[in-house]
């Protein structure tokens, strides 16, 4: 069954605005990862946050994790047109190696 659910499914903003995407999951996890996928391309890893971490930053990206609510959020600040892509959260609950279960993704459109 699908682990992660994301909202919104689609988000359209203007350049310079912030974009927030949310992810909820159902079972205990080792870590949660966010990926970006440009149209017709492969997935690019953005951030990994472990289950004992609450917040992580990478450049314009900020990820939070609330294990009590089984939810995570990805914030992209000062968005650019090049940020237009699908964003997926993936939870890892594997015991050996990773066993990523992906959410449905959020399609972000940043208008110039």
């Amino acid at each position, binding site marked *: 069954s*699908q682990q992660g659910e994301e909202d919104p499914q689609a988000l359209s903003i203007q350049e310079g605005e912030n974009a927030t995407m949310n992810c909820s999951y159902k079972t205990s996890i*080792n*870590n949660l*990862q966010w*990926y970006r*996928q440009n149209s017709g*391309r*492969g*997935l*690019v*890893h953005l951030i*990994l946050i472990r289950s004992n971490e609450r917040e992580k930053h990478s450049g314009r990206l900020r990820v939070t994790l609330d294990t009590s609510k089984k939810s995570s959020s990805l914030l992209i600040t000062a968005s650019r047109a090049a940020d237009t892509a*699908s964003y*997926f959260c*993936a939870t*890892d609950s*594997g015991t*050996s*190696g*990773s*066993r*990523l*279960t*992906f959410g*449905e*993704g959020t399609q972000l459109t940043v208008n110039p």
Partner: protein
Amino acid sequence: DTAVSQTPKYLVTQMGNDKSIKCEQNLGHDTMYWYKQDSKKFLKIMFSYNNKELIINETVPNRFSPKSPDKAHLNLHINSLELGDSAVYFCASSQGKGAGTFGSGTRLTVV
């Protein structure tokens, strides 16, 4: 250098055929994966190999058979292709439970 490379990038074939997709990673990772992305962009894990040993085998038709000749390679062979097999197949690798590095995908179209 491409970290995770998979070939071919596009594959168009007729129902009933057998085809293979190859994947190689040059990152020294110990674990490799196959994921399937359907037309609605939903990604689902199919298989995972750790040092050539199968560790994840999701509910996938046995027409799909992964093969890992060494820890840098994980190939996917599909027998008797069906229309519903049409999807994008992604190979990925990771070091233990670290971040996954994905290939650029193989778009399989069964006609």
